[in-house]
């Protein structure tokens, strides 16, 4: 199958190169034949890459250990879905996955874009082909060909790293990849608009839709990554400000900023330059993220093995950055704003501040991630910053942003009047203040947590108020019963109310994050029968009693498990069974280091998180770490609601005519470009 795979890679590379040339030249010279050929090139490249993926999967499932990639990431006793996911477990396979998914997105974009945006398509095809061809060139010339054969055939492969053997591994990387990769599509449309000088509303619609899709995948991917880190890595948290995590957060921040500021461009014709810069920036950040995870320039706990693939990406990043911003600069005169900011107390102004905060957070995260390199360049001494830096900078900024989440949607476009402000904010402000008072009375004294949950109460109240008013209005106007009125309200105004659903999820996330301020943990060495107690932030006492150790063989591992009984205030509520696993190959030889499998009991208010550190010298005496993590489930709930809200916004068919879109805005403002 490697012959077929190699052939497919080369075909895709050559076709991609042709597609890039034909698309760009065909667009600039207005040659319909070349334009058509570029479109076909993207489809053909997609087909060739699918063949390559198929060949690699066949090699994986046939356990063809003569193929270096297969030997490196799978073994005979690896469960079948991890064998499948080995496709993107390693550097080489993940590059193939990248190129394939990009070509699929590109084909979809070309097939689905409506006829009136035809002029943009050759450029879109060209840019997509160019980016995919770059990834293929890394595989073919950067020593990252997944079809490379070994001079001998091992009897069994090394197997997949045990930390990757988790159901999260099957979903988390593809989701994150889908997010990362699909940013190329809005970027391609942005480049197309700049190249074709068609800088009207059409391109904006296409870019917004694709950015939303990309944002949705990235949001889901990041949440799944947090979940995977939490249930698998055993350190008891879900976000560590690791460079790789930061790399996924950066484009998410800039895309979120764009999804807000694009509304100002649609409604008021402002911020055209800013919006294009955000899209180009988001895409460059996604390539930057790919670069730092693969180059080893920044030490991260989960980087790929060091390789010269990094130089390819650095080179590509510099060239692509220079090229796109040069093009951008030459088109600046065409991007003048149609209107000006009229008042500080307006939705435009609050969205502008929201954008500054998003970009500020992104900048500080980028700065902190690159600080070791920057400080070494400037001072000659490497200085690193860790989670304390990111928390210190981003908690205040994040809280300001949370406040704007409540203010922005309620304040009028153009200029808000005093009665408008009173009508919109009286109830929510009261709700926020009330929340803080209740928490103070309950004994909460952590400043940031109080502000976070208080603001959460405020924002939640603004959202409830919006839904209640809208539902009421429909009920009165059309006589619909309340549930129907609510359903139709959302269905007929998907962007607006889907956005509110996303905001609800964000509020839950903020509240859940602030719960981590009250995390408590203890480490203990226990003999069977001994116990340790931990007081939860809510005042109850948990007792963990070590009952004993058991050892057994599972499919591809030896398991050492502890049985720990959990009591809350003396009442038994269940068991924790943290494990140590030693993975073995099909001949029973150990592979990898022993891995830790935490045991988690999730309650509505808090998680009990138990880790087995080890067993003392073959006895049943064991070392444990127990952690109480408040409100963790709310992170996952919040993530699900963010994703659902995103789906509501994206669901096709909503909105429709310009008049309907205008009424969604809630204010009689003429849409830009609308006659």
């Amino acid at each position, binding site marked *: 199958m490697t012959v077929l795979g190699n052939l497919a890679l080369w075909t895709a590379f050559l076709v991609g190169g042709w597609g890039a040339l034909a698309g760009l030249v065909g667009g600039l010279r207005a040659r319909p034949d070349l334009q058509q050929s570029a479109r076909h090139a993207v489809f053909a490249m997609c087909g060739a890459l699918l063949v390559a993926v198929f060949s690699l999967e066949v090699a994986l499932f046939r356990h063809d250990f003569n193929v270096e990639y297969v030997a490196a990431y799978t073994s005979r006793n690896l469960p079948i879905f991890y064998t499948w996911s080995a496709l993107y477990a390693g550097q080489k396979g993940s590059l193939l996955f990248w190129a394939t998914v990009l070509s699929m997105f590109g084909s979809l974009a070309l097939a689905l874009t409506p006829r009136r945006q035809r002029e943009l398509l050759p450029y879109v095809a060209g840019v997509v082909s160019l980016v995919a061809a770059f990834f293929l060139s890394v595989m073919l010339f950067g020593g990252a060909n997944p079809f490379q054969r070994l001079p001998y055939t091992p009897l069994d492969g090394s197997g997949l790293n045990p930390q990757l053997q988790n159901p999260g591994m099957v979903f988390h990387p593809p989701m994150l990849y889908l997010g990362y990769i699909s940013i190329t599509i809005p970027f391609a449309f942005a480049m197309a608009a700049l190249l074709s000088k068609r800088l009207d509303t059409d391109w904006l619609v296409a870019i917004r839709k694709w950015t939303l899709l990309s944002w949705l995948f990235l949001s889901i991917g990041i949440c799944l990554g947090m979940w995977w880190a939490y249930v698998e890595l055993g350190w008891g948290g879900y976000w560590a400000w690791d460079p790789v995590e930061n790399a996924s957060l950066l484009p998410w921040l800039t895309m979120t900023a764009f999804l807000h500021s694009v509304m100002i461009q649609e409604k008021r014709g402002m911020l055209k330059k800013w919006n294009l810069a955000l899209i180009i920036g988001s895409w460059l950040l996604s390539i930057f993220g*790919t670069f730092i995870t693969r180059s080893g320039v920044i030490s991260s706990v989960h980087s790929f093995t060091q390789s010269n693939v990094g130089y390819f990406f650095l080179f590509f990043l510099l060239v692509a950055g220079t090229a796109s911003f040069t093009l951008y600069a030459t088109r600046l005169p065409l991007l003048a704003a149609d209107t000006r900011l009229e008042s500080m107390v307006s939705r435009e102004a609050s969205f502008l501040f929201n954008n500054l905060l998003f970009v500020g957070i992104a900048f*500080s995260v980028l700065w902190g991630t690159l600080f070791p390199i920057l400080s070494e360049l400037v001072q000659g001494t490497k200085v690193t910053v860790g989670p304390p830096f990111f928390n210190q*900078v981003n908690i205040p900024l994040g809280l300001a942003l949370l406040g704007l989440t409540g203010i922005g949607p309620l304040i009028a476009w153009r200029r808000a009047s005093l009665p408008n402000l009173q009508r919109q904010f009286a109830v929510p402000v009261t709700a926020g203040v009330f929340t803080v008072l209740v928490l103070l009375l309950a004994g909460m004294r952590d400043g940031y947590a109080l502000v976070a949950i208080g603001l959460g109460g405020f924002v939640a109240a603004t959202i409830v108020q919006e839904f209640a008013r809208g539902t009421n209005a429909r009920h009165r106007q059309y006589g619909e019963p309340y549930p129907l009125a609510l359903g139709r309200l959302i269905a007929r105004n998907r962007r607006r109310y889907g956005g509110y659903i996303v905001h609800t999820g964000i509020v839950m996330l903020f509240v859940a994050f602030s719960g981590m301020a009250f995390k408590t943990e203890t*480490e203990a060495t226990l003999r069977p029968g001994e116990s340790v107690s931990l007081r939860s932030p809510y005042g109850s006492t948990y007792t963990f009693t070590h009952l004993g150790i058991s050892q057994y063989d599972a499919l591809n591992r030896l398991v050492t498990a502890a049985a720990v009984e959990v009591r809350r205030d003396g009442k038994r509520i269940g068991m924790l069974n943290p494990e140590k696993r030693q993975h073995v190959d099909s001949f029973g030889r150990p592979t990898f280091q022993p891995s830790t499998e935490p045991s988690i009991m999730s309650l509505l208010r808090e998680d009990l998180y138990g880790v087995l550190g080890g067993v003392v010298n073959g006895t049943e005496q064991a070392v444990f770490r127990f952690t109480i993590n408040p409100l963790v489930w709310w992170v996952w709930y919040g993530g699900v609601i963010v994703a659902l809200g995103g789906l509501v916004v994206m669901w096709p068919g909503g909105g429709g005519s310009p008049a309907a879109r205008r009424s969604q805005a809630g204010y009689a403002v003429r849409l830009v470009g609308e006659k």
Partner: protein
Amino acid sequence: MNAGTKFAIGAVLIVGSVGYLMASGVKQTGQYYFTPSELSQKIAVDRAFYNVGMKVGARVVPGSVTRDLATKTLRFQVTDGTVRYPVEFHGLPPDTFTDSVEVVVEGRLHPDGVIYATDVLAKCGSRYEAVPKA
């Protein structure tokens, strides 16, 4: 004063506070990152580097690891090939910690020449390919 000017003032305030938060954050939470050789050179000229929070990136010396699970004490040596430092750590090391892996030790060097670690991060030097997050 028109809206544009007012907005500019607001923008300057936001940008200023981001800058201030970043500068103070680096000042208060920044940690030196040394290899053992760099650390020994620094300490030779300036004793102020004792008892300062820092990170030391090095490789665990094979055979130097002693674990006492009952007291959760981990002792090992780290080296970059030229200089060695003994390390003492209380707590549970990560799964990937073992002989000859690359580690980042977070802690303080005491005048007795031992690095007292508050945290040990390990990555498997030979072949650690973790989740492709990007």
